[in-house]
């Protein structure tokens, strides 16, 4: 039997099989954006963003059922905070409550670690927050975060635009988030109202999820819905691409090497030959 520590490492791999989710914070708002997959053309798209309370919600990458268990737990915590203190659950308390649950599974046998990564977004007494939760029980606060397949591309974009986020308006922040998400697309894919989901929360703004027709206005903010980075990469040959590539491979070494022997800019097949963590096949463009 593999050791518990090894299982945790495998659990983190499960996240990389899931489609990407990104999150961004300004002084006043947090935005989540995620790429949905459908198992088959006639099937529905897998939900990627789950509302927890009026002031918080999560985006997931990895095993969706595990995410439901965790978000359900968060909902209970949030309700109990409302019931006992009439106080919205603080983001830091929320994420650490699931972090402590996850840590248990990494230290004792008899259970498996959660196979899902979460981006937890919310607005509380101390402002706007974005946390990344991992099955290892690690929880870190970010100003911009991305998890899931090819998320390194989104991180690269965000690192470059870092200074613009704090003072961005809600609309600008959503645009940045969608651009970051677009960077994670495989070469023949596009963002569209069926596969894109956006959520926003902030000052005087309850956690709101935009899907389908509702997400259309946000997509219109973008000049292109395809991954411009893919084409750009081929033309440019400066250091930046190399960094991206390295990052991609380094970050998801195990996930990618099996299927993609160093194919270009980490835009190789979306682990198509591996069983998808969200029990779906590859993205199918309508």
């Amino acid at each position: 039997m593999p050791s518990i520590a090894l299982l945790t490492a495998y659990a983190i791999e499960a996240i990389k099989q899931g489609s990407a989710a990104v999150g961004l914070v300004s002084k006043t708002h947090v935005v989540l954006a995620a790429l949905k997959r459908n198992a088959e053309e006639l099937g529905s798209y897998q939900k990627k963003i789950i509302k927890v309370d009026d002031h918080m919600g999560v985006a997931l990458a990895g095993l969706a059922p595990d995410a439901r268990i965790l978000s359900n737990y968060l909902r209970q915590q949030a309700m109990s905070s409302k019931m006992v203190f009439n106080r919205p659950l603080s983001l830091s308390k929320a994420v650490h409550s699931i972090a402590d649950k996850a840590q248990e599974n990494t230290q004792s046998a008899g259970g498996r670690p959660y196979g899902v990564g979460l981006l937890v977004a919310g607005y509380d007494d101390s402002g706007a927050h974005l946390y990344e939760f991992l099955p290892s029980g690690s929880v870190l606060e970010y100003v911009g975060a991305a998890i899931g397949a090819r998320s390194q591309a989104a991180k690269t974009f965000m690192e470059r635009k870092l200074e613009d986020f704090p003072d961005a308006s809600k609309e600008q922040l959503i645009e940045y988030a969608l651009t970051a998400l677009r960077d994670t697309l495989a070469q023949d894919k596009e963002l569209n109202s069926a596969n894109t989901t956006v959520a926003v929360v902030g000052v005087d703004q309850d956690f709101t999820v935009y899907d389908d027709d509702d997400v259309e206005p946000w997509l219109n903010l973008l000049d292109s819905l395809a991954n411009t980075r893919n084409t750009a990469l081929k033309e440019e040959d400066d250091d930046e691409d190399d960094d991206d590539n390295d990052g991609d491979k380094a970050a998801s070494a195990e996930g990618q090497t099996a299927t993609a022997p160093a194919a270009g800019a980490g835009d190789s097949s979306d682990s198509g030959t591996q069983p998808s963590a969200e029990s779906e096949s590859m993205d199918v463009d309508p």
Partner: protein
Amino acid sequence: MNHDPFHWGRPSADTYGEYNYNIAHASNADRSTSTNSEFPRMHTQQPMITGTSVIAIKYNDGIVMAADHMGSFGSLMKLDDLQRIIPVGKSAAVGISGDISDFQYLERLLDDLEIEDSYDMESDNLKADYLSEYLTRVMYNRRSKMNPLWNAIIVAGFDGKGELVLKHVDLLGVSYSSPTLATGFGNHLAIPLLRKKVDSEEDVKKLSKEDAIQTVKDCMKVLFYRDARSWNKYSLCVIEKSTQSIEIEKDVAVEGMRWDFAQHITGYGIPQL
């Protein structure tokens, strides 16, 4: 509400058999009938050592609250140095009347809450509105178990936005807010005096801090005159919104008392000279 079970009416003797009067007593040790299983489970039926009124009034920039330092065992003065207004966190003060052992239990509950809050080393999250909600839940849960904490509580302080909070919570888990609040005898003796100054939120704007303190001091004097379970040493809590400060002064004495009229009182059992 009247807490004496004899006032609650009783099941008809025809239907339910003779009423067992032992039920209304706190102890079932001296009951004349049967075994434990036939006897209802009993919890606190009356407070033991008690603290009397807590009073509070809002003024244009805060709240003034007071409670005396006595713990009574029936009509015996058991304790004379009991501080019943306690600070909780940086944004609240809580004044508690009623059973003193239950008060001490609440004190520990609030202290645990304070420690848990200190785990977050960067911010103070224990706001007065959260505290009053918490205390309401505690009181309501206990009364729902037919085992109430025999207290009436006044919570005063600030919410997350720095606005004033003034709330009353009692042993039934009922909570309400008003610009003037009192517990116990204070409801009968102090509230009319306080309402003379502040009858509505509108009047709050017209009352200065000095006047508010004076009004509360006058009320404490009237309470000491007329409430036989009160004492002339009390804590005075002054909350100021503009500075977000909460100050609790101990051992404030009732001033300017006149007892010379007492020699003319007759008819209270002891022959007067």
